[in-house]
């Protein structure tokens, strides 16, 4: 089960939950599972940068998740 | 409005051009003569990107009016190499990685040449003050200063340099 961490800004939607474990083989599936558990969250996470195992993954929707993956949602960054 | 006819020497060649009285030498070089090597960074004489040598004197061409160069001699970046042979400053800038974006480079080369024309063996401090009128935002000046010192040393010891290369 992938371990999902919620930033403070999403914790209103998760009822204060800071992290949870979810069975998902891709980020798309993860978003669907998250939406089932925390309605309204998909729109928020879809606009965030997704970090999988410490690495921000651009265009992450189809990215595979390992059973022990860690997923974080961050503000989007690029740089100068 | 009638334009002024101006005759001068540009990089050793006699030339003439027509310009408006309000037109700067920078604008004449770029817009009338197509010599785009001289750059405009500010238009107020603060950045040195438009440096040219006018009768042996380093000037910002944005602060000189076109008609003012009547009968005078102008050196620009385009005249710095001798045919197919680069000036030692151009060589040292290339080899010393003395630029990143390169937009300030023509101005620096012209200013450095004016410095070495006047003082062939400058100290680091003299180099730093010699190009203090030229802004570079990429390099932090380190490699520019080193390259000018390197060129000065090549020029004052041409023999040593030839043997070394």
């Amino acid at each position, binding site marked *: 089960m992938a371990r999902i961490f919620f930033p403070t800004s999403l914790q209103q939607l998760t009822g204060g939950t800071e992290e949870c474990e979810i069975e998902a083989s891709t980020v798309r599936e993860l978003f669907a599972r998250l939406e089932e558990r925390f309605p309204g969250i998909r729109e928020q996470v879809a606009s965030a940068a997704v970090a999988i195992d410490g690495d921000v993954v651009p265009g992450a929707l189809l990215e595979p998740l390992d059973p022990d993956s860690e997923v974080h949602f961050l503000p989007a960054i*690029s740089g100068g | 409005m009638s334009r002024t006819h101006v005759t001068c020497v540009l990089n050793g060649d006699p030339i003439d051009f027509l310009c408006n009285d309000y037109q700067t030498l920078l604008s004449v070089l770029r817009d009338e003569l197509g010599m785009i090597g001289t750059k405009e960074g500010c238009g107020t004489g603060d950045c040195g990107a438009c440096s040219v040598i006018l009768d042996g004197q380093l000037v910002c061409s944005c602060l000189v009016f076109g008609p003012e160069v009547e009968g005078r001699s102008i050196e620009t970046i385009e005249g710095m190499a001798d045919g197919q042979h680069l000036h030692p400053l151009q060589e040292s800038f290339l080899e010393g990685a003395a630029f990143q974006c390169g937009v300030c480079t023509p101005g620096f080369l012209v200013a450095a040449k004016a410095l070495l024309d006047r003082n062939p063996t400058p100290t680091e401090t003299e180099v730093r003050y010699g190009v203090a009128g030229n802004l570079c935002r990429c390099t932090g000046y380190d490699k520019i200063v080193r390259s000018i010192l390197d060129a000065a040393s090549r020029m004052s010891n041409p023999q040593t340099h030839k043997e070394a290369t």
Partner: protein
Amino acid sequence: MTTTRTGYKWVGTRPVRHDGLDKVTGRARFGADYATAGMLHGVVLRSPHPHAHIVAIDFSDALAVPGVKAIITGADLPDLSDEFGTGSEGGINFRDLSRNILARDKVLYEGHPVAAVAAVTLRIAQQAAEMIEVEYEVLPAVLSMEHAMEDDAPVLHDDLYTLGLDSPPERPSNISRRRVIARGDLDAGWEEADVVVEREYTTKAVHQGYIEPHAVVAETGEDGRSTLWCSSQGHFAMRTYTTKVLGWEPGDMKVIPAEIGGGFGGKTTIYLEPLAALLSRRAGRAVKMVMTRSEVFRATGPTSGSVMRIKMGARRDGKLVAAIAWMAYEAGAFPGSPIGPGVMTVLAPYDIPNVLIEGFDVVLNKPKVAAYRAPGAPMAAFAAESVVDELAEKLGMDPIELRIRNAVTEGVRAVYGPKYRKIGFVETLEEARDHPHYSAPLGPWQGRGVASGYWFNFGGETTATVSINEDGTAVVMSGCPDIGGTRAALAQMAAEELGIDVHRIEPVVADTHSIGYNDMTGGSRVAFAVGIAVVDASRQLIEDMCSRAALIWDVPREEVEWVDGRAQSVTGAAAPLTLEELASGSANTGGPLSATVTVNPRGAGAGFSTQICDVEVDPDTGLVTVLRYTVVQDAGRAIHPDYVEGQMQGGAVQGIGWALNEEYIFDRDGVMENPGFLDYRMPVASDLPMIDTVIVEVPNPDHPYGVRGVGETGIIPPMAAVANAVYAATGKRMQDLPMSPVRVLEALSGD
């Protein structure tokens, strides 16, 4: 210390860059160096007020001036909905972008474009612009963050409601967003702390300061298809943004990249491009537009001014146990300061268990900020690294030892969430500690400071093509403008792979119609991401060439290997085939030799830098002179060390300018008082010493040569390094930037 792995022939060497000759002879063509026959000249009419309603615009007299061919105002641009695209500072709102290009009902800063004019000469265009009559209803301006955040402050956007609050806001405000990062138990953390330091810091808006002003030539044909020649950090993004703002199709626009005269993040967005394109379509002629330096200052860039309060606690043994950071960043006229990376980076170098970080994005009547080298991180580091220095002093610890004790390492969870992958922070600290600079003697009124910084770095969408010519030379094509030597670095990586001389490779920056999409040159991404694509394409070519050699020799593929630019038979059964032979005979083996690779890579290695600064303070004038400066930075692997050093030196000196001289100064009416290089004082050669560099190489496992981005990290530590040095020299903690002579004198007279 450049520990280049032996065995590389080109990676880690310092060849003359391929575009160098054009740049030392004046032949290189930058944005303003393009011209077409019969082109018009465009100018922008800008608001004299920082905040006003536009009641009416009458340009009938201006349009009647002989030689004026077109005039446009905000009414000529389609209104876009709130739509976000990827871009600098993590997303660009096209509705705001459009309104920044041309004001609609309101002007929001002095210099905000109101109209644009194209005429047969620049002078006629300028005269006509002055004849445009704009009726303004002047509104009270919001010029400081303190004012902007007050409950009864005038509101810039009546549809702006703060995101990220605990309960939904009832009315609009100037705070567009609140960002929070929290972890651990702060009360427990403070309980554990033996020493606590709490301070407030401010920094001023500063400009990227590229020497080349924004410039564009646009030509729109009768069929509606257009061509743009412009200098930018990414011509694909310029096309996307420009066509979006105009409501045109991206495929109908070709953007040809000029050489770019510096960007530093400031050329990741558009200003003139849609104006020139639309004027060109209206007039049926090409239109050239070039900003003056004053326009560059008043209406492009800068990066945010900031207010930050930091509180940090440490145990007596030096362990950092708790921290609070409150940060507010100026966004300028529209939302979008780099507060996101600000809150993520402020404490990122350290492993602190109990943390609360709160950040605010604040709009006010100043130019909309743009990305500037590691956007959001330098000001944050100024505050945090000053506090770390003060804690070290209170603990009686060496400031580098305190940092080593708390430094993040591989596997440690960053304060913003994810675990760090392979990083080289501790290595930079150790190199700095052991550097002779760190123990060199100092004189009276002299002091030494150190500081560190962290930046994420970025990958991004990338296309690269490598092709072999019939003479065995190669072309490496990418779509990322080369701002500081990336063409050379890409050619070096291809030369290393192909086994040919780097100068038999021509690196090219191709236009939008000649290569697949590329994200911008930004986020320190080019040597990393484009490097991966170039290496992959080179390896595909080698595989292809080995297969063709096998075909020619009629042997299995396994019996062919690529050595020193030649296909070689492992059995020695056939004479080797050179690149030239394979290329010239390619018609018989399957056609031309060319490979294109597209990637969107993960794994841009994080960058850390630690810097040492010595200053001398003149007690009579308050002038701070930097005497010696050393930049230690992890580059993963330096492909071309000269240009890696150049990035480190240039970043450090921009930071020194930010620390000591540079600031936007506004009068009480909100008009910028120093929009020129005379009064906006960037460092010149005589202000500075040599900038020593130490390249640390902790290879990034996600790049074939170990590259990490190096372009941005160097600008993060300098402000704190300088401030800590000023403290060491004077005993005064400088909490407000810039540390100009006046401010330093004030601090010195505070005894």
